[in-house]
């Protein structure tokens, strides 16, 4: 293919059946809170990401889009705008390292290096080769008085040191 030829579009994903029966009631309750179905996007995507292994695949994206009666490109636009959503497999454990000023002053750069080394990756945002970790560089997590802060699988850890971070990550299966 010449460099000037546009790539052919990939085959469209088969929408996942959404919501799965375990989430049906919760999703319907969320939708009922708002005057539009679109407004339920963020809370429903939070549920979906938790349910489907920590990330939103193109199939789930299409399923959520169909459920909320919005286009799948709209959902993709949200997933890529909001830092908490993942559009690629996210490992069994998601490690967020706050990188913003207060945590950086208190040693976040070292924590980031430690987390990446532990995961065996050279940059944030990619799943570790063994599928165990996804390390994400996050902006201020709002735990500044107990900086530096790290979240592991949604749970906050504060006043973290490189040693305590190693222990925390070692404890992850």
């Amino acid at each position, binding site marked *: 293919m010449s460099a000037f030829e546009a790539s052919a579009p990939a085959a469209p994903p088969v929408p996942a059946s959404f919501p799965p029966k375990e989430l049906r009631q919760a999703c319907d309750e969320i939708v009922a809170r708002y005057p539009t179905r679109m407004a339920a996007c963020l*809370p429903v995507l939070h549920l979906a990401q938790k349910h489907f292994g920590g990330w939103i695949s193109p199939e789930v994206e299409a399923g959520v889009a169909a459920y909320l009666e919005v286009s799948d490109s709209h959902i993709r636009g949200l997933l890529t705008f*909001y830092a908490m959503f993942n559009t690629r497999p996210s490992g069994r454990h998601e490690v967020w390292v706050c990188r913003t000023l207060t945590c950086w002053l208190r040693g976040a750069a070292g924590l980031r290096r430690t987390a990446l080394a532990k995961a065996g990756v050279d940059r944030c945002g990619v799943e570790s080769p063994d599928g165990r970790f996804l390390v994400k560089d996050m902006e201020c997590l709002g735990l500044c008085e107990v900086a530096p802060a790290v979240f592991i699988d949604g749970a906050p850890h504060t006043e973290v040191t490189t040693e305590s971070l190693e222990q925390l990550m070692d404890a992850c299966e």
Partner: protein
Amino acid sequence: MTAKKKASKKKAAAKGPAGSTPAPARAQRGADGVYPETQILSRNFGVEDSWTLAVAREQGAYTMLEKALATMTPAQVVEEVKTSRLRGRGGAGFPTGVKWGFIPQDSKKTKYLVLNADESEPGTFKDRYLMELDPHLVLEGCLLCAYATGLDVIYIYIRGEYPLSITRMEGAIEEARQAGYLGKNILGKQGFTVEAHVHPGAGAYICGEETGMLESLEGKRGHPRIKPPFPAVEGAFGCPTVINNVETLAHVPCIIEFGGAWFAGLGIQPDPANPRALGSSGTKLMGVSGDVKNPGVWEFEFGITLRELIYDYAGGPLDGRKVKAVIPGGLSMPVLTAGELDVPMGYDALQKVGSGLGTATAIVMDDACDMVEACENIAHFFADESCGQCTPCREGCHWMEKIFARIKAGEGTPKDLDLLEHLFVNIEGRTICALADAAVWPLRSILRKFRHEFLAQMPGQSDPALPAGSAAVGAR
């Protein structure tokens, strides 16, 4: 993570349950010269299980809602808040009562309150304490606002990074609903029907901007809206909407309890000679984080100086270190140097010295901090969080970050500093929302106040004015 509890030094608290105590008196520095805490918003922070309705009710939760419903008209509540001169606690400092007055009372549309609990401003964690430790106070404030302005639905937009705040606020809503503080004809008041829901954010600084938040609430990307129309007329879902910060509304019950005039008497009075100096009435949760011994959050009457806050409460710099620079309120305000700390914490006073109160949560940088690297870190934040909508911010924030990175890599020249000044001009005030301004202010002030540190990292540049050893900074 429960909000960290800190032992307090001195307190002038409203002791005992709300509604049963006299109004706290004005704060006076003691014989030791220490400015005391005034615990009104924070009076339940130390109470065990303070977030449950049972405990909160023992502390007088919802008694001010009962009082307002029984004895005041909505217009009287608005008037009381106007009298209090309460200003928004989210950073912009807009008079709350005036904002409420913008809600059109003749509109047939549903009216919304969107409580700004996004608290995405770096270095800011005060609202988290309120939501985790006194969610019923927050909800009572919301309900008083709903009563005063005739609102139907409350959405509490909490950032996704605050899982405990989400849990506690959802729990409080559920308890309040069962106790009749939410739902139809609240406390038997015919027609006072309000629902409340928590709406979780998902990681975007810009959703703390009020119209970015509205977009996000509607299930869209948090691109701030171009005004007019203003949210009071056309806000959430095209309907009249009040948007207030958590702390702002948490103040309302005590204004009902002790009166707007009492609240207005606390803090710093307006300057009659300067119509733009609206004063800083009441108390404020103030915090310190960064390079200090005892970071935390405390409640003070406006008027404590930044130096007192840092040294008397936050414990001062770490052993062997000196304070070098302080951003007084979040990340988005111009920096102050160690010599500029004797400024009272207040909206107008901080503006007068070229900075701003912001969220009143200071970030302290000590003499180990490399200001070039700090600028790279700050610029990265704004580049990362720029929503991408307006050209100057989208392109400019990242451009600034690249220049700081270049200087840090030892490849900068003095021309880069001129280029940065040129970019500041073309970024500030050229966009839909204030994110771009927020990016420029700390960076420009650091560049101007610590120019020698930038020159010191440029090959072949030396500044004769550079004090010996001042560029000796540790790598982070």
